[in-house]
């Protein structure tokens, strides 16, 4: 498989402030690659360097074989970009917007197919100002695809949209993936990354703190399931050592026991057996697999969304 994006030892400093402090990753053709990170982590800076919008301080960067700092225009010609919070003039019709931007590129997608694919066909003669938020975002996506790019950068494409539109956009990204297009996605939504991304890089304070498929991350970084049991009576007495348990803790009233297990299918029967033996009455039981969000909080100490 061909490498579409190659980043090695990337640094970016604004005066004394280092926004990016040594980032390395590769993205292969056809991959949907996610960048996750809290605000100010350096993801936008990284992406803008890749898009040719910003110079870098140090490091090797190749995007579609171009150095984005040197071959800015060639690179822009071949990629599609959907930035956050862009606008178009109010009195611009949807189809005019597509034709306008298509004129800048050397290769063009079929405009009408694009409009249909993004469910904008009925809206093609509307002014931009008459569109809803979701429709505007679909126009932005359509503009990112006017040149039929092999590599698409999507910066928070679903932020602030209602679930229905978000779902449509997810479908679109899946279609791109099916068409073997490479997508670099930055997002705040864990579910989005979990659902769409082949691999995810978690960035914090200018560095990648974790990189892998969502499942790998869940397992490698914090691979235990959390089992929580609640009993009617306090669980006095010595706790036994269960098999495959990394950590166990009893609450202050001795009625809630939390056990972290790498093999919950093994631990759970053992645990229930022990409670039975002791004669405690089981009131409640939870089994929770870790999410990417847990991974994220664990790694960065921050929540993605406040």
């Amino acid at each position, binding site marked *: 498989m061909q490498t579409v994006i190659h980043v090695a030892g990337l640094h970016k400093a604004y005066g004394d402030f280092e926004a990016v402090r040594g980032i390395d990753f590769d993205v292969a053709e056809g991959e949907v690659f996610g960048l996750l990170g809290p605000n100010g982590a350096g993801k936008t800076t990284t992406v803008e360097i890749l*898009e040719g*919008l910003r110079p870098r301080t140090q490091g090797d960067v190749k995007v579609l074989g171009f150095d984005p700092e040197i071959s800015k*225009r*060639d690179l*822009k*010609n071949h990629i599609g*970009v959907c*930035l956050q*919070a*862009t*606008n*178009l*003039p109010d*009195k*611009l019709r949807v189809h*005019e917007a597509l*034709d*306008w*931007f298509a*004129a*800048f*590129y050397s290769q063009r997608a079929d405009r009408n197919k694009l409009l249909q694919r993004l469910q904008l066909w009925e809206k093609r003669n509307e002014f931009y100002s008459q569109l809803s938020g979701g429709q505007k975002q679909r126009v*932005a996506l359509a*503009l990112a695809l006017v040149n039929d790019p092999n590599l698409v950068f999507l910066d928070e494409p679903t932020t602030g949209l209602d679930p229905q539109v978000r779902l449509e956009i997810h479908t679109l990204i899946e279609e791109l993936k099916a068409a073997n297009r490479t997508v670099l996605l930055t997002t705040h939504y864990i579910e989005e990354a979990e659902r769409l991304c082949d691999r995810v890089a978690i960035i914090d304070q200018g560095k990648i703190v974790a990189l892998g498929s969502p499942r790998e991350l869940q397992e490698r970084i914090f691979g235990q399931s959390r089992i929580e049991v609640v009993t009617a009576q306090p669980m006095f007495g010595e706790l036994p050592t269960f098999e495959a348990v990394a950590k166990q803790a009893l609450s202050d009233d001795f009625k809630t026991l939390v056990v972290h297990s790498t093999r919950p299918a093994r631990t759970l029967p053992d645990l229930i057996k022990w409670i039975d033996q002791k004669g405690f009455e089981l009131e409640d039981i939870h089994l929770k697999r870790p999410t990417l969000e847990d991974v994220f909080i664990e790694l960065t100490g921050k929540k993605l969304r406040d």
Partner: protein
Amino acid sequence: MLHSYLTQIRMNLLLTLRNRVALFFSYIFPLIFFGVSSMGGGGGNSLQVLNIVLGLGVLGGGLFGVGIRAVQDREQNILRRFKVAPIGPGEIIVSGMVTALALQIPNIIFMVVLAHSFLGAPWPTQPFSLLIFVCLGLLAFASLGGIIAALVNSMQEGMLLTQLFYFPLLFLGGITFPITGFPAWLQTVAQFIPSTYFSSGLQPILRGKETVLDNLPAAGALALTGLLGTFLAAKLFRWEKEDKLRPSAKLWLLAVLGPFIVLGAWQMHAKTNIAKAKVLGRDVQRSRVALIHDARLFLGDGTVIDQGSVLIKDGKIAEIYTGAAPDAKTLRADSIEAAGKTLLPGLIDVNMRLSLPGIPISESEYFQNLDQNIDRELAAYLFSGVTAVKSVGDPQQMVLKHQATIASGERLGAEVFADVSPSTKVVDGNTYEPMLAAGEALQAYVEGKTDLLDRSLVQQVVPRKWFAQVKDSLASAQSQREALRARSIRSDVAQQKLAAAYRAGVMLVAGSGGGTPMVVHGPGIHHELQLWVQTGIPPAAALQGATFNAARLLRADQRIGLIRKGYEASLLLVDGNPLQDISATERISTVFFKGERVNRADIFEQK
């Protein structure tokens, strides 16, 4: 590449045409301006209105068009979308400029058509020069707007800074009113302002008097500012508010104005553009439309119309009406009430010398400031209703110089005719120039009498300080005066000769001999006519001698000396009836010179 430029321009145009506010200011606003100026009556010239509207259009369209649009697009995050496309700042700026041109040029044609159809302005005779010059102006102002756009961070800041440029450019640059009305220091300041050069080129091009080639320095500076500005606007271009701007960037704004700083510095010495501004200001005055109505008209050739009106337009007599006057408003003319007054052709003095003071004063002082004194003498003539004079016996170089400054309109004074043939009292067998005033004055000078200087008009035109010197001068010139006694002509003999010439039907021509001691430039010719009438010449014949006959002598009777359609509007309006009382010519109401209503009160204060 070309395709992306063309698309960019096409879309810019499309969006502007969909923008009601922009359309209002470009197309409806001038319409309103035309409406107001055509309803307002008055004799403001249609070309002047067009000049102002074009100036406003070019300055506003240039400054506000490209720049404010860019700030707006940046503020609304529209430019962010373009940032990720393969298009550079250069393409955006250049296509913005071309759009401004493409929008303004139809607008300018529209205004020319409006001025033609509603105000009766003539079609421009230099359409290509007009087009090129207007384009250069637009580019220069648009590039300024582009740089301002790059420097500001918000729409408010952008509007503020643009207006900070707009108003000085508008008012100090002579677009709305001529800079000649400013104090001298402000006129010098104006020479550093691009719009000064734009307006001083636009006006004569619009009048068909000049082409772009006559305005090369101005055109060059506008072009250079346009190019430099475009380059810098692209260089400093910011896609997003967050894009940082170096503090030194504001200095670039000065760099763009560099060509005009150079021009301004040059003009501080050369002053040619200030002189040009004076001429342009004069053109505006001369092109006003005025109706002098219900006057008694003395046409110059002896014909008298008891009640008549004269329409002045573009410096010429456009129409003569007999009987009841037409309505000035419907003619779009200034109305000049002249009931009880007499309108004559401007008087002509065919014999005077500029380089003599006409009053006994210190010669060294007079010759020290000779040029200024001559300017004043020519102004005194015009003040006295004398619109043309013939120089006799002055150095030719000097005459040509003053002839030129008057002819160009830079200074206001009587038109100067150079002495082509040696001065003789009898030009040919059929012409007689009695010069009674000069003879009488010489007599008075020899005898040391100064009562000729007490006459009211004399007192009005001679500098106050000179009267104080007369006594001493006369005393110190005792011997010269004695020497003249032998040469003095007896006035009774001169009068007899004049009477004989009149009886014989010889053409009488009036020359005052201005410059002769006690013959002051201007008032002298009035006195000459009074002396003729005392001799028994009918006032009409005397007036003809100072108008039509004089013009014939100067071989200028095809354009001056008569009130006739197509003749120059150089006229004298006096209170009363000089045909009954010749001294009425001294009771001057208004003097017109080539269509300009002469501001007699300020004529000696010309800057």
